[in-house]
């Protein structure tokens, strides 16, 4: 007897129909605020999945996602802002940057490419390092990128930041881009290249003896991760519509790491619960930070309660459930992106049984 959870119809309903219905309800019935929070959730899912791609799947422990996100956000914003706005607000902006104005999706793609190229350039020297060295150097990229954004004022407008972007990151756009991004990452993960990545993580020597080039695979994975972090950054910029270097700094770095670790670094699906917790928790806890009432109970004002709760939770997860919520399981995407989920809907029951026997 087939288990209910393996039935195509069940997978289809839980990972496709229900989320889609929820999204349709949100898009049509909810106000901007809830939409903004949900858009933020989807962007966070991309960022967390991109982080999992290197940290959990390839075994490159990188803290640099926020820096790639920053590059994506800046490149994307500079490409979509109207030329006259750029000229009047960013003093000394080179003409060729000021004059470019691209449609959003082109800008989105280019922002991802820029982040990937940047990752490629820095990856060549830094991916030789391992473990803590790599952790600190990638944390260094976050610090360095912020410093560059602060100082290259004629392009980035320094710490003043850039504002005035159009709100292109609507819910349908964000959902579409997120699903596409996740699909690509998932496909790479399940390809032979992806298996190479996992093999490298588990046993480097064995993987190399099988002809997997450690350096190339790691660099590729690093660049892919940066590409999607850049996409996430570009979406983020067109949601917030105002960016400054300080937004892509240590706080953001920790937030991304928290999402990645809580959900489960080794699973792309983990990005969803991880991002959900980190996106919604601050809102649930925000009453503690201003005082007031929550569900009728008086709460005292505790500054920074979110961080305290999150970091304790974080330590507990590390001690008791190192793999996060999903461990290395990828249930959601296995179901969502597998053709069987969709073709299975139209097959008769015994076909499934037959297939299983084979």
């Amino acid at each position, binding site marked *: 007897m087939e288990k209910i959870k393996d039935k195509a119809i069940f997978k289809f309903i839980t990972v496709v129909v229900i989320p889609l219905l929820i999204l349709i309800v949100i898009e049509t019935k909810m*106000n901007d*605020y809830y939409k903004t929070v949900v858009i933020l959730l989807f962007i966070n899912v991309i960022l967390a999945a991109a982080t999992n791609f290197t940290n959990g799947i390839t075994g490159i422990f990188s803290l640099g996602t926020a820096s790639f996100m920053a590059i994506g956000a800046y490149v994307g914003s500079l490409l979509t802002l109207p030329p006259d706005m750029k000229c009047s607000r960013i003093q000394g902006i080179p003409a060729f940057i000021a004059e470019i104005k691209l449609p959003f999706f082109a800008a989105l793609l280019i922002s991802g490419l820029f982040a990937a190229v940047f990752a490629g350039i820095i990856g060549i020297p830094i991916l030789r390092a391992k473990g803590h060295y790599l952790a600190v150097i990638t944390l260094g990229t976050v610090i360095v990128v912020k410093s560059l954004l602060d100082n290259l004022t004629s392009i980035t407008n320094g710490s*003043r*930041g850039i504002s005035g972007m159009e709100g292109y990151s609507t819910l349908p756009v964000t959902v579409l881009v997120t699903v596409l991004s996740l699909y690509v990452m998932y496909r790479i993960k399940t390809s032979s290249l992806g298996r190479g990545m996992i093999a490298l993580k588990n046993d480097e020597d064995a993987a190399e003896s099988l002809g997997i080039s450690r350096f190339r695979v790691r660099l590729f994975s690093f660049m892919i991760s940066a590409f999607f972090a850049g996409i996430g950054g570009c979406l983020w910029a067109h949601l917030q519509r105002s960016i*400054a270097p300080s937004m892509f700094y240590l706080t953001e770095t920790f937030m991304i790491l928290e999402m990645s670790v809580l959900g489960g670094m080794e699973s792309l699906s983990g990005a969803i619960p991880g991002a959900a917790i980190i996106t919604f928790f601050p809102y649930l806890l925000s009453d503690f930070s201003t005082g007031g009432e929550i569900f*009728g109970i008086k709460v005292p004002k505790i500054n920074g309660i979110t961080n305290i709760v999150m970091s304790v939770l974080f330590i507990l997860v590390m001690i008791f459930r190192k793999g996060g919520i999903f461990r290395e399981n990828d249930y959601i995407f296995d179901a969502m992106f597998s053709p069987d989920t969709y073709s299975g809907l139209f097959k008769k029951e015994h076909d499934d049984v037959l297939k299983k026997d084979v």
Partner: protein
Amino acid sequence: MKKRIVTYLRGVLTIALAAAVLTGCGAANSGSAQTASAVVDSAAEDSAPADSQDSAADASSEDGITIGGLWGLTGFIADYEIPGSEGFELALEEINAAGGIDGKQVNYVSYDAQSDVSQATSLTTKLVEVDGANVIVGLGDPNAAIAAGTVAQDHGVPSLATTSTLPYTQDRVGDTAFLVPYGDNIQAAAVAEYAYNELGAKTAYVVTDTTDEYTLSLSKFFQSHFIALGGEVFGESTYDDNGYTDFSASIQKVKALPESPDVLFFASFTDQGPTIIKQYRDAGLDQPILSGDGLDSTEIAEIAGEAANNVYFSTHVDYTESGDVSKFYEAYNKKYGKEPLNAFAALGYDAAYLIKYAVENYANGDYSSESIRDAIAKVTDFKGLTGTIDYSSGNVPNKTVFICRFNDGKKENLTSLVPEISADENN
């Protein structure tokens, strides 16, 4: 087998959690002035498919206006925004105790934006969409104020910034963004004039924190006005705030100048203030130090001690004045059990009475956001604690600048002035 079921349940739970949190979080976040149940009601109203903004506006025209407070109560801007929110809440309490605005009680919902721009934007959306705020106050540092102000602009909701002093706010955000304080161009010019005329300074050296819009624009405007007056700027050194506490390089550069500058201008925030002042003093540089309202904090004098003597800065109010100011000072002391840390408490207080003044005089009982915006724009002669606010020539008021200095650990008010700035300096 059991494990697989668990895995499956996990997937379903995740989705369910997302849905539950989404629908639940409106109810969980009750503002301090509203009861939890009231917010549930308004959230339920808003999730109705009808145009939520209108329904929120309609509801409030019966109950009086709803003010949304967006304050950076934690994070780097907290030093300015906590006093601001306290001043604002004090005024609101007084207003409601005296019958409210147009005889109707004012609703107030406030959130902590944590000095974080993404929090600021999403909470502004929340204030407008969920809580039905007709006007937003606070808004945080210039970067947050631009981002949050833009969201408010999109919804046609006026915003009153109490901390940001960015002169080109209106240009960046639009016609719904107002400043309660004066802009950086005015305060920097006032400091430059004071230095040039009163302190007799002809030469200056500038040190700028490059990590915020505020310090950058303050530094720029000081230099341009000081030069316009006939002074000379010997040079500028910059630092970024990323854990930077050693100013020896810039000190050595000043010492290496062929002639010591008459004054030093520090464009910095409170947190670096004491450190930089002390290091310059320790190095034997005793000339007057000038700065903007970012250094307005009694803490600086406490931390830097004697080194803070001869430090001059601009501020928004003279707390030693009699009349309304002293009444405010006492009321604040009574409510919070402490003295206002800086002038931002008075700016917050002014913001509340400014809304009352604008709505009662110009809104004609129409409490829609649009009407309140127009009402605020019509204000030409609002007399607050921090001077007279006149929006007839733009959304950044041209107010009196108070010049203070630290003396033996205390803030000392010296004078007040309105600087004259030529138009081309403002760019």
